């Protein structure tokens, strides 16, 4: 026993540290002793004061009627700390002694709950001196908008579903105390909240039990309903070659003017025996980590985005999907910069990744809690204090500049000062498809009448399938005397361009439907039905695999996930059928006559280009 306990007398924990005083029954005394035994012997060394622990009838004990640990009324307090005076609920002490039943929630028994309360309250006393709850890394891990000096600030994370005890979100102090309870008492805590556990273990000196098996499996989310949550990926640090800062250049939309900040995990293919540079080739296994606003509405509201009404979450997607999204559909460059992380930092980063993926739901503010700030907080939690100070910016481009700055030494290899070509050849930039499309377009300009705008973007804004079809028909007639090689080249380029134009057109139709929907109640109904159908497939990771709390353990994952995948197949088919039906009804509305016409013309283009392809294929 590490602590000398003398009943009503003062207890000195060690010569220069805190003293504990309590007037308690034998039972509570024993529980205090047991709780103190769990904590390190120097836990209260910094508290150079006398701490009293008393069992008293708290006001809220009147509400504390249930004998079911999982059905405790709201407002019930188990303990209160005022400065160095700890009061423990007499009702809790009584239940801890008399009720030995095991429950399927929280600390499982009233006895454990009592110990948790003792640890919780002692942690408050310690925190009052050491200010652990306002530590910057702690705040980054548990989810604060900005690093605060005030420990009474609410947490931004409010995902009660994945929390062991929603009281952790009350403020930073409570977050520290609640998480410390679980660290001390639940051997699974270090696997369920690994980043929090690592931090607290180091700060509080509470040893990790090392008895649970951490589950590094995450689920790939996708904008394509048929792919969403259909793939699980193991991001065990041993299988990750590098972590990259992934930065999408400036976009056209208001919310993407500053670019988009993400991470890329270079996940090695399962067949590889060693983890090294060769894993750069395993692109289909790479993942993108992207903090985004979770929008289940069909319509994006800027005001909701301004005022934090969308949840901010860490999305994990296949890297190639993100590459398509930015380089093809948004025509933006994608920068992939390898970060210089030690193996310990990489592990911390990935621990936070799984904890965030399964437990985090903050608030997205377009201006000050966005992809940039969330990304910096995530990275800074893994970096040393000195390193994290080097990334002082919050916009994706400026974060990029901070990261690549040679003097900061944050990248794996020097990237600072490389020109664009060097970065492309070094695979540090994946180019937007714009240049390739533009070069094809410029060649076609000499042959097709409606391709007269020198500026490809102007052409994109104005072109219609009908005018292009006329061009292609003229070209088909006029090209009979053209050299076979030249004709083949032109056909190749125009079909390539048509593929892009068709996909671009198809992407725009739903946006127009949303923009028009307020003009017509029927249309609105169809759009809303479509939105509802999509919503049924819009699901959170913690709904896919329901953990006791935090990150699911391997058994929780392995039992639930396959069942989800099986059930999902049917739901996806139904949703797609329903959406197609809605889309047909939408396109039948008068507002979409132009779109319907465009579709018809695109079909004709397809027919004509197929003929052209056959012609060039038969050129001997």
């Amino acid at each position, binding site marked *: 026993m590490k602590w000398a306990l003398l009943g009503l007398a003062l207890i000195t924990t060690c010569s220069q540290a805190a003293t504990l005083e309590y007037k308690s029954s034998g039972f509570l005394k024993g529980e205090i002793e047991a709780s103190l035994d769990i904590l390190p012997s120097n836990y209260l060394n910094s508290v150079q004061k006398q701490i009293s622990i008393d069992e008293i009838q708290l006001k809220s004990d009147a509400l504390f009627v249930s004998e079911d640990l999982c059905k405790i009324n709201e407002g019930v307090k188990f303990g209160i700390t005022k400065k160095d005076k700890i009061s423990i609920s007499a009702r809790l002490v009584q239940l801890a002694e008399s009720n030995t039943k095991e429950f399927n929630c929280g600390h499982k028994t009233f006895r454990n709950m009592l110990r948790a309360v003792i640890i919780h309250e002692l942690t408050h006393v310690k925190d009052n001196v050491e200010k652990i709850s306002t530590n910057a890394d702690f705040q980054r891990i548990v989810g604060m908008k900005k690093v605060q000096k005030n420990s009474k600030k609410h947490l931004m994370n409010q995902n009660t579903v994945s929390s062991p005890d929603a009281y952790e979100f009350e403020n930073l102090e409570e977050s520290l105390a609640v998480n410390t309870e679980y660290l001390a008492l639940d051997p699974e805590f270090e696997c369920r909240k690994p980043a929090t556990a690592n931090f607290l273990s180091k700060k509080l000196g509470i040893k990790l039990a090392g008895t649970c098996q951490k589950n590094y499996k995450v689920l790939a989310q996708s904008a394509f309903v048929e792919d969403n949550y259909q793939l699980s990926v193991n991001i065990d640090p041993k299988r990750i070659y590098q972590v990259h800062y992934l930065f999408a250049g400036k976009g056209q939309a208001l919310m993407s003017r500053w670019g988009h900040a993400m991470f890329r995990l270079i996940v090695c*293919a399962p067949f590889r025996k060693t983890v090294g540079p060769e894993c750069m080739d395993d692109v289909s296994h790479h993942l993108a980590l992207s903090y985004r606003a979770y929008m289940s509405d069909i319509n994006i509201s800027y005001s909701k985005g301004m005022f934090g009404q969308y949840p901010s979450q860490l999305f994990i997607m296949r890297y190639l999907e993100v590459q398509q999204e930015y380089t093809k559909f948004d025509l933006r460059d994608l920068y992939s910069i390898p970060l210089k992380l030690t193996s310990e930092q990489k592990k911390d980063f990935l621990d936070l990744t799984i904890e965030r993926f399964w437990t985090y739901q903050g608030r997205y503010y377009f201006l000050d809690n966005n992809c940039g700030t969330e990304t910096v907080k995530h990275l800074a939690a893994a970096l040393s204090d000195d390193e994290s100070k080097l990334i002082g910016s919050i916009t994706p481009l400026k974060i990029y500049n901070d990261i690549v700055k040679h003097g900061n030494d944050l990248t794996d290899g020097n990237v600072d000062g490389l020109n664009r070509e060097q970065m492309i050849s070094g695979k540090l930039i994946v180019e937007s498809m714009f240049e390739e499309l533009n070069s094809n377009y410029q060649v076609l300009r000499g042959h097709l009448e409606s391709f007269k705008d020198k500026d490809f973007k102007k052409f994109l804004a104005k072109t219609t399938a009908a005018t292009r079809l006329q061009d292609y028909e003229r070209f088909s007639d006029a090209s009979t005397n053209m050299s076979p090689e030249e004709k083949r080249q032109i056909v190749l380029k125009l079909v390539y361009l048509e593929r892009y134009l068709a996909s671009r057109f198809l992407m725009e139709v739903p946006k127009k439907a949303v923009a028009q929907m307020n003009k017509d109640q029927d249309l609105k109904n169809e759009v809303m039905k479509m939105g509802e159908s999509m919503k049924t497939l819009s699901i959170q990771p913690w709904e896919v695999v329901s953990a006791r709390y935090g990150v699911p353990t391997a058994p929780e994952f392995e039992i639930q996930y396959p069942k989800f995948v099986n059930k999902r197949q049917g739901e996806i088919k139904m949703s797609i059928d329903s959406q197609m039906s809605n889309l047909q009804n939408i396109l039948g509305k008068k507002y979409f006559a132009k779109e319907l016409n465009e579709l018809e013309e695109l079909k004709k283009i397809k027919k004509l280009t197929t003929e052209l392809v056959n012609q060039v294929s038969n050129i001997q």
Partner: protein
Amino acid sequence: MKILLITLALSLSIGNVFAQNILQGTTAVTLSPFVAATRLLEMTTAAPFLSTLVSALGQSRGVAGKEQMKDELVGLNSDIEAGIVNSIGEVRQPALKEFFAEIAADEAQMNNIDSMVKNGTQLQKIATAVTAALLSE
């Protein structure tokens, strides 16, 4: 969009003579995977294998991964036609390069491909089969 994609792929064909060369065993100087792929699609015996390959593609790559490969086919074809690329290690299109390497490492898949595409280098044979698989969707 799928149909347009097929059109695109077909548009890269050079001439049937090359396709016949690949499938009938004559050594071709320059091989276009698109031409060979269109011929492969016409072979009834190829259908089950291509279907398996497509299914594997979907499961492992998802919609976006397949789209990426389709986008990359254009560049690959140009590179092969131009003689810039002669082996899987030289392929400059990352998603295709990875998939080709996976297939090359799979003996059963390679046996299937060898039985359908008689001639050409390993790269040309795999490129033909993958192109056909993507076109057959």
